[in-house]
């Protein structure tokens, strides 16, 4: 191990630890935005339990909201990663179904308010 290795490791550790701290807001979300191909197709209120079905040319995804948490319960995608991921509940948590270009992201209401008022 060279000294430069240690410097490099130290620098990247500092960068990514601070980024991790910066991004780490473990607070529950209020809504989930559903996007397909980058465009928002729906915003789900997480305070109400329910089932939502989304159908695209690539296939379908069924989203379940239960007790403020959200998950994909069913999909006909090839890898089932979205289904296996299970529940997410914290702000900025996301479920991504790459084969369907489908994404569910948990958001908190303050952010949407800010975006509206600004």
């Amino acid at each position, binding site marked *: 191990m060279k000294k430069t290795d240690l410097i490099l490791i130290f620098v990247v550790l500092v960068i*990514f630890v601070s980024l991790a701290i910066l991004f780490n807001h473990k607070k529950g979300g209020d809504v989930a935005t559903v996007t397909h191909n980058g465009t928002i197709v729906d915003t789900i209120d997480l305070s109400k339990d329910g089932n939502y079905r989304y159908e695209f040319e690539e296939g379908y995804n069924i989203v379940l909201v239960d007790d403020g948490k959200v998950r994909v319960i069913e999909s006909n995608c*090839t890898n089932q*990663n979205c289904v296996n*991921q299970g529940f997410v509940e914290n702000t900025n948590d996301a479920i*991504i179904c790459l084969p369907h270009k489908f994404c569910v992201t948990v958001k908190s209401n303050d952010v949407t308010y800010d975006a509206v008022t600004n």
Partner: protein
Amino acid sequence: MKKTAFLGLFTAFAIVLSAIELMIPSIIPIPGFKIGLANLAFLLALYLFGFKEGLCVNLVRIILVALLFTSMYGLMYSVAGAIFSMVIEYILYKSGKFSAIGVSVAGAIFHNLGQCLVAFIVTGTVALVYYLPILCLFGIVTGVVIGIITNTLIPKLKLFLDKEPTAKKNDILDVESIDDEDEEDEV
């Protein structure tokens, strides 16, 4: 001859590492991301033979792994991660300023950057960026481990590579020297 055998061995090794990696449950809620164990095989090929050889080992691995275990969409991820990590690793290796540990750590980080970039292009969401720090922190750990392994293996493998040909060349000179010619020139 010896080089071809070694590269075949590395490729097989890389595929095994990829298979192991697929069995490890994802540390973050985005399955499909790899921690980059197979990078070890690339680094060994790079340090022993050169970039071209490392590239071959890695590309053959990616294609075979995609055919054997994963889907084509998984291929996109691996290709992006591999290209990003191989380029940075080659640059740092060439600079001569880092040992395999630094090279491997940088490779692990760029591997994640490449994967995130593809996921961003495919899904159009920036949500994945939030997982980048934790992915990279795990990447640093695996990077250091792979770097240490590379550092210890390379001198031993080099010794073996340098020693063997003289002892063996007399025995099987005629058969082996033919396919030797086209492979050996650009090291």
